[in-house]
């Protein structure tokens, strides 16, 4: 065999990086094509987006704030993938976290400092329980988590919607929500009058912690083993069931934190539309990061910049925000199958090369 050395790890990492970079570039390119077809100038649009998100302190702050919830859900998805589980239930787990943290923040008085921490934790636990339930369905009943995740999303969003529309809704309020949380439960804003709260720090810390957990702890070792080869893991005495449950609990907890961050930091309550697909947006974030927790930090920031820029741009011009969503979706497509980019390119290249040699040999006929 090719008894290779430590180079293998580095080249492996590099190839993930180049794959992600290529995917992002291709996605931006195709997105640019679409926006051009829509009558805008490719260059102008991207310039405006990056200027919006990076050109002012307000923009940068918004970028970081936007990155926060998807950093959590991206991390959650990455944790699941490592064990071989596609967690489709992140959205529901996020809602659980948002609701429970808001309720703890609103109804259970606690001293300052403690309250917000406990509320966040409660949100994490709620999300984690929802994830564990999914795991239990798989381990105990063999129910495919892909389907149960979707079902639980609907059940949870419907149920929380009911709660925020009826029993838990404060009087004299228009939209569906719960009562406002106490001040002691609010997340501290890193920048006043912005959406950037300490949740951002928590998200980064979580990514680092999870990365550390995966590499340095025995649980990380076991989860990696199960994800790579469940059969050999079983022979080695590692219980895949337990690892699935653990992974889904952690994954759900991350989504729960995403919800908590939104409820305690931005909305100061649970609202019916606390998330519009942020759970699912964890998938492109994780995919671009090669499902690596540290990579999720960078990936989430990148998407945060794009989304914040699009928001800013949308406020001043008519450039629609959604095209960033399109770019996000394209990223998943291109990261999943880089061949989609490389094969057409290679095909065109070969055609050009063939035509070159054809004319060449015609010129130098035998």
């Amino acid at each position, binding site marked *: 065999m090719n008894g290779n050395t430590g180079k293998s790890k580095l080249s492996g990492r590099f190839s993930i990086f180049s794959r992600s970079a290529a995917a992002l570039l291709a996605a931006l390119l195709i997105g640019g094509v679409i926006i051009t077809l829509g009558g805008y100038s490719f260059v102008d649009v991207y310039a405006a987006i990056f200027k919006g998100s990076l050109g002012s302190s307000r923009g940068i702050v918004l970028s970081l704030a936007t990155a926060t919830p998807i950093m959590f859900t991206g991390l959650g998805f990455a944790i699941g993938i490592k064990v071989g589980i596609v967690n489709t239930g992140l959205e529901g787990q996020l809602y659980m976290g948002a609701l429970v943290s808001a309720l703890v923040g609103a109804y259970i008085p606690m001293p300052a400092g403690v309250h917000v921490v406990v509320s966040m934790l409660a949100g994490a636990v709620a999300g984690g329980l929802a994830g564990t339930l999914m795991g239990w369905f798989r381990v105990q009943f063999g129910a495919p988590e892909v389907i149960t995740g979707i079902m639980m999303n609907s059940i949870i969003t419907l149920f929380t919607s009911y709660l925020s529309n009826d029993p838990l809704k404060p009087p004299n309020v228009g939209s569906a929500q719960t009562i406002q949380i106490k001040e002691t439960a609010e997340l501290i804003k890193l920048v006043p009058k912005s959406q950037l709260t300490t949740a951002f720090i928590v998200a980064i810390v979580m990514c680092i912690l999870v990365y550390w957990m995966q590499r*340095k702890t025995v649980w990380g070792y076991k989860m990696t083993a199960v994800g790579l080869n469940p059969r050999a893991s079983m*022979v080695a*005495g590692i219980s895949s069931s337990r690892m699935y449950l653990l992974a889904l609990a952690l994954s759900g907890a991350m989504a729960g934190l995403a919800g908590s961050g939104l409820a305690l930091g931005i909305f100061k309550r649970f609202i019916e539309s606390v998330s519009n697909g942020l759970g699912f947006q964890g998938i492109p974030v994780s995919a671009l990061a090669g499902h690596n927790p540290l990579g999720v930090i960078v990936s989430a920031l990148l998407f945060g910049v794009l989304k914040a820029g699009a928001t800013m741009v949308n406020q001043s011009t008519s450039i629609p925000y959604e095209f960033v969503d399109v770019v996000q979706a394209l990223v998943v497509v291109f990261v999943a199958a880089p061949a989609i980019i490389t094969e057409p390119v290679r095909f065109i290249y070969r055609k050009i090369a063939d035509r070159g040699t054809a004319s060449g040999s015609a010129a130098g006929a035998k």
Partner: protein
Amino acid sequence: MELIKMPQITKQYPGTTALDKVDFRLEEGEIVSLLGENGAGKTTLMKILYGMEMPDEGEIYYKGKRVNLTNPNDAIAMGICMVHQHFMLVPAFTVVENVIAGIEPRKKSVFVDQKAARRRVAELIEKYNFNINPFARVESLSVGEQQRVEILKALYRDARILILDEPSAVLTPYEVDELFVTLKNLREQGTSIVIITHKLRETMDVADRVMVLRNGRLIRDDVVPADTNALELSEMMVGRRLINMDSRQPSQKIGPVKFSVKNLVVKDSRGVEKIKNISFDIREGEILGFAGIEGNGQTQLLEAVTGLITPESMELTLNGERLSGKAREFIDSGVGHVPEDRSTMGLISNMSIKSNLILGYHDYPDICKNKLMRWKDIKGYAEHCRDFYQVKAPDVEAPVRSLSGGNQQKVIMARVLNRPQEILVVAHPTRGLDVGAIEYIHQQIFNFRDQGKAVLLISAELDEVVQMSDRLMVLYEGEIVVECDPEKYSKIQLGLLMTGQSPDAVKEARL
């Protein structure tokens, strides 16, 4: 009339010659048994006839005319059908649906003509006495019945030549008898049949003619069962070569019983007994070897004594203490397991050599403290293992799949042997390895035993089991046929025992 002639067939694979100028012929209306050990080349030869493989040299003649078979559809068009060892059926479909899928009778060219399909399938069932309900779902049928559905598929396609690959491997003795009746029936109706097998019983009971392959070469193709006996056939299959007894290292000191298994019964998912109540002991300083052809219960035995399955019944004692539970408990009690299949069960290919060396022992105090992996120590541990066990790997961080087969096996051995174990349970330890690696691994096993430990060795390689064991057991269809001193029987006799002959019958054939 000669139906098929395949002269001088040669097929090479990287590193090995599967077939070396083999002549094959098939007459109309005969049952031929293609006999040989595992790896003799029988399946490869038939895959060539069925169009699944292409020969490097040699041709195929059908009724005297040269033909080119490049894929199974060509073969099927000529009436050649193969019934694979692993059935190609859809359990949720009915018998009729399974038989007609791909070649359905049509009504208005799009709809399935259910009536015609049922009629034809029922006709065939009737004609050949298959005795199955055409509307039954295949998942509700017994294995023997499912096999008949596979044969039905071939007959429905007007197969004139039927190739059966190890047909009795999955059947109970009763089902085997039923199969023989079916085959004879088919022959009466003019079908020609080739049975790929290593079982002498099938050959003797049902074949008109026997063709023996050994190590890719044709030994004889004109043997008539009536004119020969099991001993002669075994000799042809296995060769007169004697086992090299020089490399034996019998134990110098055998102590009291260390590992004891009583009343082991293992049933498979369908409730069929794969291990039919066996008991055995292994002593300190002893290697107990299980010889036998794969598929006779070895896997189930291994799974039971390493905690991978919970057997129907088992009383296992190690060093005087009862042992039960899952793999975790067995590993912690000092059962060192070197699994049957190193790449799917023994190693995690994409993990580093270092990580693979601690697999199974990852939460032991020297590897893991307070749930934190001690990677620096682990690296040192891995490098020590690598050096001590002569694994050719410059970097223990490299993924284990970058190693050769021999080195991969050494990693597994190192993992297990570098820890205090009470008993080594090792299966097919040198499969696919070169001579140097084989010698090294055998020596490691001897060294382990000489520390006063026990070894349970299972191998399909008869030479290996005989050379290594202090005491030998032959496993056949889940039962221990004989327990003996490895030097007692000749290789041919052992080959006979491995195919189910009784010790008494074999004793007469002393060689």
